[in-house]
């Protein structure tokens, strides 16, 4: 597929990287879920992570904002190392937005309230200010008219767009997507992907766990293939899809294409 017309950011070594993951390991009890993960993400880079289920994709990105705890190695986000320290965790979570497979909107709050809750309680904004920002992002995801409704009244695609707006309100420098479209009906996938493409075009640093290969080809700078808790292969999208190197990658691609 075609290259996107945004400038390709430089692959920086360790300086200037938004996220640095070095030698990270994670275990669930005796089970070794993530093995020696090394990954650098530069500013503005858009990475798609794919792989069979249970390969540790979600776990890896959930480690980045400490929804999961890693046991070995380092995760550094914008120069802050992720440790037990609550202050560091708070700081990193403010910089990192996340969109979940099942949206995880707060069902007891309206769409707008979902968007502004963190602005009020974390950024300590006035309600009016927060609502302005909230509306701005709801407009951006093209559902300002739903602001006063409750999440339960929206379609899945609309809910996911609200979830994206909710994350954007916090003005994050990195966005994590954990299979954002896999719980949606086909006709809704497109509206969510469109929003994500729009976001990518605005220069947001993004890590997406997704099986939408079309999306990967359109927007990704890099595609990462994971299996068995390890990064098996990573490459530019075109090369990755046209010329996979590893057997497991080939097998995986043959199954989903």
């Amino acid at each position, binding site marked *: 597929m075609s290259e996107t017309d945004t400038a390709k950011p430089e692959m920086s070594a360790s300086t200037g990287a938004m996220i640095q993951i070095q030698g990270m390991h994670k275990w669930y009890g005796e089970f070794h879920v993530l093995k020696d993960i090394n990954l650098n993400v530069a500013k503005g880079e858009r990475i798609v992570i794919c792989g069979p289920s249970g390969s540790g994709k979600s776990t890896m990105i959930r480690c980045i904002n400490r929804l999961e705890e890693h046991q070995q190695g380092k995760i550094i986000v914008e120069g802050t190392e992720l440790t037990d320290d609550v202050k560091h965790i708070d700081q990193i979570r403010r910089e990192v937005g*996340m969109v979940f497979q099942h949206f*995880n909107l707060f069902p007891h709050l309206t769409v707008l309230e979902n968007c502004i809750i963190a602005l009020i309680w974390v950024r300590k904004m006035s309600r009016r200010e927060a609502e302005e920002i909230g509306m701005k992002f709801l407009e951006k995801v093209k559902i300002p008219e739903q602001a006063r409704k409750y999440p*339960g009244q929206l379609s899945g695609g609309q809910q996911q767009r609200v979830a994206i707006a909710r994350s954007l309100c916090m003005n994050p420098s990195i966005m994590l997507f954990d299979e954002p479209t896999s719980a949606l009906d086909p006709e809704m996938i497109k509206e969510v992907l469109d929003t994500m493409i729009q976001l990518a075009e605005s220069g947001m640093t993004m890590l997406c766990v997704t099986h939408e290969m079309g999306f990967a080809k359109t927007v990704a700078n890099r595609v990462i293939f994971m299996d068995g808790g390890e990064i098996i292969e990573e490459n530019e999208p075109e090369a990755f899809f046209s010329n996979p190197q590893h057997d497991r990658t080939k097998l995986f691609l043959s199954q989903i294409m």
Partner: protein
Amino acid sequence: MSADPLSGAAPAKAALWRRPVFRSTVFQVLLILGVVAIANYLFTNTLHNLEQRGISTGFGFLSMEAGFGILQTLIPYDETYTFGRTFLVGLLNTLLVSGLGIFLATLIGFVMGVARLSSNWLIARIATVYIEIFRNIPLLLQILFWYFAVLQPLPQPRQSLDLGGMFFLNNRGFYLPAPVFEAGFNLVWIALAIAVVVVFFMARWARRRQEETGQQFHTVYVSLAILFGLPLLVFLAAGTPLTWELPALKGFNFKGGVTIIPELMALLTALSIYTGAFIAEAVRSGILAVSHGQTEAAYAVGLRPSVTLRLVIIPQALRVIIPQLTSQFLNLTKNSSLATAVGYPDLVAVFAGTTLNQTGQAVEVIAMTMGVYLTISLTISTFMNWYNKKKQLVER
């Protein structure tokens, strides 16, 4: 349906007895007749029986002198008061034990429900064991156990357990110092009232300020400081106008102070421990009903755990907990009628027991007693329906 679908004419009318409307009308009329007939049958029988046996009827007995004493009365009462008064005394005693029981059971239930979900294995295990033991043993047995096996073997008044010279525990009850308000204490009450008003307005101001400027205010701490500090200052300024009346052994028993009779203690302990186990389960299921994704989403947008709990988890968990909680409150109130097994003078013991026996007017007395419980339970369930409707999640 019409016989010939092609004719286009108005559908032909079915025979009367085949029409659903007719059938349901007939059925309902028959039902009403049946219910009325049965009610009438029971009513005439009762009237006939009462008349036949020369049993007095009507509510005149309520204004007759009762002539018996009651162990615990919240309002002035002695033998010269009427049966109407005994009704009131019993009712208030029921409300007392229910109110205290609801408070304690909720406390125990919330602590145990949260403890059961604790990450500390031992704490979670203790909570589980507590819940599984106490909710699977009949309440009556628990009441009897606390009364006959735990409280009665306590020492006699003269060998009371002395807790600091102010609190005494023996098999006649738990004796606490009673506050004696001297002149000038009224100022403290006034200060407290002012503090409440101040805190109320402060909370409003803080909320508004936050909405306008985003600045947050330590409402909780400041409120507590005002609520306790202001009355305390006034209290000290007025020259500490409060003394404590200590219970002391005089004659056969302790006199003075506040007494919690063992009947109340046993009933209260059993009711709150038993109901607490059910509430703990409700709390646990409520918290579990909020999916883990909600917490993750809240963390992901940067909310701190305490804020997450307050704004995201609790409001959603309460939707599940409150209906179960109200029905437990209702059960507790109804179960307080087991008071009669240990001689606590509640409504059933005093009114449906002694009063019924002295007057012999079973129908009136039992009707009044059931009426009270029905009123309580209908009030609570009306509230619950209202709450459910209000809090129902809006969905497509």
